[in-house]
């Protein structure tokens, strides 16, 4: 029983982290139809930017997180505007573009910051304890930020004009454009928002885990898994799927071990997709 509760708490922490990652990914995916291979790159960049603002510029950590979010967001904006926008209708070409960008980003980070992990600590390193149970305070912060971010994005998409425009573009670009919406203005904004979210996640999570040039590698696979499992472009679906994956990963790792646990998770995903071909909450399939 103790181990079950422990695993559940771990699963919730994992889920919060995954949900933050998947949020940006599903935005780009749902609105632009782009599989952003550079998503992990923005996560790492956010981590290193925050690290730089703290260690080199001497800024307090919360401010560094905000600045890291801005930096990655602006970079994402420029990237969409200058590169992706040219080929936004060709899914394979954008996949290749973002892959190329990811390789360049991580090389740049490797050359600038070196291969080894720097000292980058979360300012709150305490742990809440009750009997055999524990919850690191840092994870609580991530959980809170995660919930705020989900609410924020939800409000933005469903309560503002910008959100309505983005949703219209996601539903049918031709019709939306014919009605006067301008993808060329809105797409970079959506991309910036998503990359900013990835960067913020990096700034928050890398000091809790570790920061190194390659820590973005697994981000893509996880985000991809969650977004599809949740149903494309569905913010609620991605959130539920993120916590589901987090919990399954925690239970399977605790009870089966790291390697067999991963196998169990993947097989489960496979089964879910075969049984429910449009994901848990999805309605229509977007063509790749």
């Amino acid at each position, binding site marked *: 029983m103790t181990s079950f509760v422990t695993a559940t708490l771990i699963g919730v922490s994992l889920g919060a982290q995954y949900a933050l990652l998947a949020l940006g990914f599903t935005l780009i*995916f749902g609105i632009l*139809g782009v*599989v952003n*291979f550079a998503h992990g790159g923005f996560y790492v960049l956010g981590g290193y930017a925050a690290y730089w603002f703290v260690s080199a510029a001497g800024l307090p950590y919360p401010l560094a997180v905000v600045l890291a979010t801005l930096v990655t967001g602006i970079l994402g904006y420029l990237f969409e505007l200058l*590169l992706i926008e*040219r*080929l936004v*209708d*060709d*899914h*394979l*070409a954008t*996949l*290749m*573009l973002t*892959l*190329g*960008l*990811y*390789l*360049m980003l*991580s*090389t*740049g980070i*490797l*050359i600038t910051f070196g291969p080894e992990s720097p000292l980058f600590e979360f300012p709150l390193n305490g742990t809440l304890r009750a009997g055999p149970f524990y919850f690191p305070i840092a994870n609580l912060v991530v959980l809170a930020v995660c919930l705020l971010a989900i609410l924020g994005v939800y409000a933005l998409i469903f309560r503002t004009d910008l959100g309505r425009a983005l949703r219209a573009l*996601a*539903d*049918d*670009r031709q019709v939306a454009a014919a009605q006067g919406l301008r993808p060329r203005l809105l797409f970079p904004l959506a991309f910036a928002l998503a990359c900013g979210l990835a960067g913020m996640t990096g700034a928050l999570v890398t000091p809790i885990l570790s920061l190194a040039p390659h820590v973005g*590698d697994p981000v893509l*696979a996880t985000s*991809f*898994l969650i977004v*599809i499992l949740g149903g*494309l472009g569905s913010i609620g679906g991605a959130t539920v799927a993120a916590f589901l994956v987090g919990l399954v990963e925690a239970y399977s790792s605790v009870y089966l071990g790291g*390697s*067999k646990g*991963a*196998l169990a998770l*993947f*097989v489960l*995903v*496979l089964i879910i*997709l*075969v049984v429910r*071909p*449009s*994901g848990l909450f999805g309605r229509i*399939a*977007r*063509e*790749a």
Partner: protein
Amino acid sequence: MSLLRRHAGEIATILVVAASLLIPRFTDDPLPISLANQILIAITAAFSVYLMLRMNLLTFAVPAFMAIGGYAAAIAGLQGGVTDAIALTALSFVAPAIVALPIGVLVLRLRGVYFVLVTFVLSEIVQLVLFETPQLTGGSNGLVGMPSTTAFGIELADNASVLVLTAAVALAAALVTALVTSLCRQHFAAIEENEPLAQSLGLVVWHYKVLGFVVAAGLAGMAGFSLVNMLLTAHPTSFGPGSSVNYIAYTIVGGRTSILGPVLGSALLVTLTNLFSNQGQYSQGLYGLLIVVVVLVARGGIVGTAMALVRRVGGLRPATAHLATGTAAPRGT
């Protein structure tokens, strides 16, 4: 003549791959031989991606089926003492094809990115299964010590004969790909253009998709065999899920509209990867830059751009020109 014209890409591909059989006659320098070996393996694997893209399906499962083909051949050599190149090549095609059949039946109902994810998950699963079955696959250490492959009783052990075998396997893969895409040209085109429409017009889409998937798995398996034969080892790191992106890149950078695309894309990217590898820590970044530049400059890949150039210079009729690039831009929102 029109048949020849329509199959020009296929014919060119088969001739180019067949010509590579002769490389050892001209040089015994290990660099070009090693490079040709890598390119031909890449081509064989990229055919798998190309075939799936004919049906508008993007696959990340190439390393998974490469592993099944490669390990099947390695196990046959180690435990069954099979060394005949033709038998091993056939096995490396058949084994992943058999595995792919039930999977295809199950997952080909999925469209678009859902299918992409399943293929992605398949690669992860195969990698973990390799680790969990050390008795059969050697686990994390892989399999080494296979007997040398033979062809008609002659041992193929030195650099040159390994290349000849790789080239022969690539040639077989090219023939299979050309055959399947030619026979199913209209059906695949119908699926690619508009699957629901094709379905409503009475095309049993599902049969052709399974056929394509099974053959694509077999092609990947052949590439796996060539890789194992070149390295003299079947090692899990050779089939990492991350490597799937490379085969996709070869196909897209080369051009997905013609079978010549995977050939040119593999040749270009593998050659440059080798050149970049002595640039130290810059190698990956240069590779990324290259992909970005090619994708931006050469829309429709190298083949698509070359055809656009040919069209501009040769002044082909617009109708034909449209056909050549019409499939280059995929639909979707």
